[in-house]
């Protein structure tokens, strides 16, 4: 019996030795917690990219890729760190797609990924603080920083000739970060912010906030909140009191619910959310629907792109060693090279193998800038005749 066991072990060892190395990717997202409704479609996106690479059989001389999920709880830094620890030390992953929310991502990056030298590509952490974090070149993200959204908002207002606005934000990292980055961008371009104040979510009475905002005045009220939380309460209050007629809605507000609630009453209001147009998103939508998940859900395309970028970088480096492929992430993501859309990962792997260059565009129009974060493509919307219409991309 012992001999047989030895023999099989030996054979197994030989077998794996003969084959190319197997690569493992960790998928570290908030499968529980406040954004749990998004996490499954994000993970499905990342796994779709992995499946596509496996199918092509072109990855690192025929190596296979597998994935392992880990939970961060979105707001639970302790859980995130423990999951990252497990993925790296016991599952031996070569890279992590994640984390999901900004605070938790910072925690697992600094406590686990950097000490272990593992690359993290986050699809959805948007805090401006992550742009300046000391990351040894190990951290990337396929979503834009909220600092970028602040700039886009300032541009939109300038194009519309609006110079005076009031701002209210939801009292958390997202709201505060976005409101502050917007204020500095808008002031720099010559605009005036009459008031920049927070509101708490989950309250039903916002008359005090609306009173202060109305008193400060402004042509437009910017509501950097959540549409199913305090944001809607503020807009309702402001409309009822006749304090503001026109609003600007950042990404936390732009959704079907917004159209349903305010398309008519806040006619002429406008806003923006991260979203790309064109062939990439269309391809991805088709692929996702075939695979049986909801590919249009927020940050699902970014997750596909995060996994795809990681694998292409490995191919370019010819190795799944994070120290080697971290240098290649920016290279495969940006020009020059052949443009790569979702569904063309096999082709990309082939090009890289033949010594060519690729420019990964993917499902969310990836273009990495600065410290390795997406430049971000934003969809500009406006309320017209009781409907929310897309008026352009920037």
């Amino acid at each position: 019996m012992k001999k047989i066991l030895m023999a099989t072990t030996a054979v197994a060892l030989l077998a794996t030795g003969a084959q190319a190395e197997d690569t493992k990717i960790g998928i570290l997202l908030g499968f529980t917690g406040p954004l749990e409704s998004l996490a499954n479609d994000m993970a499905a996106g990342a796994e779709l990219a992995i499946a596509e690479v496996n199918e092509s059989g072109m990855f690192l001389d025929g190596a296979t890729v597998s994935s392992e999920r880990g939970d961060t709880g979105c707001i639970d830094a302790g859980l995130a760190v423990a999951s990252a620890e497990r993925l790296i030390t016991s599952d031996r992953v070569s890279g992590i797609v994640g984390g999901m929310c900004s605070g938790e991502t910072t925690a697992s990056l600094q406590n686990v990924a950097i000490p272990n030298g593992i690359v993290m590509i986050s699809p959805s952490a948007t805090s401006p603080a992550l742009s300046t974090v000391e990351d040894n070149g190990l951290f990337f993200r396929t979503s834009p920083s909220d600092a970028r959204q602040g700039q886009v908002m300032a541009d939109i207002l300038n194009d519309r000739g609006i110079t005076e606005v009031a701002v209210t934000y939801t009292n958390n990292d997202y709201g505060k970060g976005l409101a502050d980055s917007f204020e500095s961008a808008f002031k720099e371009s010559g605009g005036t912010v009459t008031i920049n104040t927070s509101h708490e979510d989950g309250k039903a009475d916002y008359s005090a906030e609306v009173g202060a905002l109305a008193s400060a005045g402004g042509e437009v009220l910017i509501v950097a909140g959540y549409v199913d939380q305090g944001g809607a309460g503020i807009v309702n209050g402001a409309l009822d009191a006749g304090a503001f007629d026109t609003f600007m809605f950042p990404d936390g507000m732009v959704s079907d619910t917004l159209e349903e609630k305010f398309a008519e009453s806040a006619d002429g209001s406008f806003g923006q959310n991260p979203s790309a147009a064109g062939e990439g998103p269309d391809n991805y939508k088709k692929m996702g629907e075939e695979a049986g998940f909801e590919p249009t859900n927020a940050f699902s395309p970014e997750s596909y792109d995060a996994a795809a970028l990681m694998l292409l970088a490995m191919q370019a480096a010819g190795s799944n060693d994070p120290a080697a492929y971290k240098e290649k992430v920016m290279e495969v993501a940006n020009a020059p090279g052949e443009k790569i859309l979702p569904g063309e990962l096999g082709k990309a792997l082939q090009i890289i193998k033949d010594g060519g260059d690729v420019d990964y565009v993917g499902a969310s129009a990836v273009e990495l800038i600065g410290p390795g974060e997406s430049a971000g493509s934003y969809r500009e919307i406006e309320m017209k005749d009781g409907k929310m219409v897309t008026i352009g991309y920037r």
Partner: protein
Amino acid sequence: MDLLNAFIALSNYVLIPGIAYGSQLALGALGVTLVYGILRFSNFAHGDTMAMGTMATILVTWLFQSMGLSLGFLPTALLALPFGIGFAILLLLGTDRVVYKFYREQKAKPVILVIVSLGVTFIYNGITRFIIGADDQNFLDGERFIMSARDFKALTGLKEGLAFKTTQGITIVTAIIVVALLFWFLNKTRAGKSMRAYSDNEDLALLSGINPERVVMITWIIVAALATIAGTLYGLDKSFKPFTYFQLLLPIFAAAIVGGLGSPVGAIAGGFVIAFSEVTITYAWKKVLGYVMPEGLEPDGLVQLMSTDYKFAVSFVILLIVLLIKPTGLFKGKSV
């Protein structure tokens, strides 16, 4: 100088919302204060009693809406309100029979009853979410405004608009009627007098032949009606979401304690004190002062005493001051 515009701006953003919110808090605080006066414990389940009663009202409202019943420019919910109150009465009497009665017979200490009511809170909480869900529910119909800001501007030609929502009007009128009825009941009827006697001195009341179980039953019935009315008005004026009703418990208790627990007049005064302190202390006076101050002296800044972030802190600071200086509250309730 433009006193008229200044007054309109002040009414629009401070007076009207403050009065409406104050009425809602006062009705809630009346319920809390009655339970405290008669049953002698702080009923933490009050916020969720409001949620349960409102939920029943909403369900009946939807039924009426689907049947095509309506009250014209008034919200259909007013028609459904009696059914909601009926449900809340059954609920509270049932809870009393199953839960509170046991502890009353044990002569349990008030603090035990408080914890028991916290348990009841969580059960109500769960049932509400189970039946209607945790999301926002909209059940308002009928005319939205008595006077909208835009109409007011067109009508008067003033620079400032004055919005007066139907729900605010209904809230204020209903609150006045309910409070008048309550005081008439407490002061003029036999049952009301026996309640006050029981509240003032339990032993003496029992000796003079007042049936305690009857007093308790009447109290729960009144509390159920008050809670459902307060909850429905609040839901109509703002929106119905179970979680905000749970949170409403804090300002309601603050109102009841500031006014003096056990004192109905105090509960009403406390409701308005809390509502106005939340709205006025964090109000930015720039606009109003801009109209009042002479030319050239208008303020550049916001003239805001405190950022709106602190509005909840404000009501609790007032609560602390009142408890330090007058532990029995403004209107001599029982000390906590």
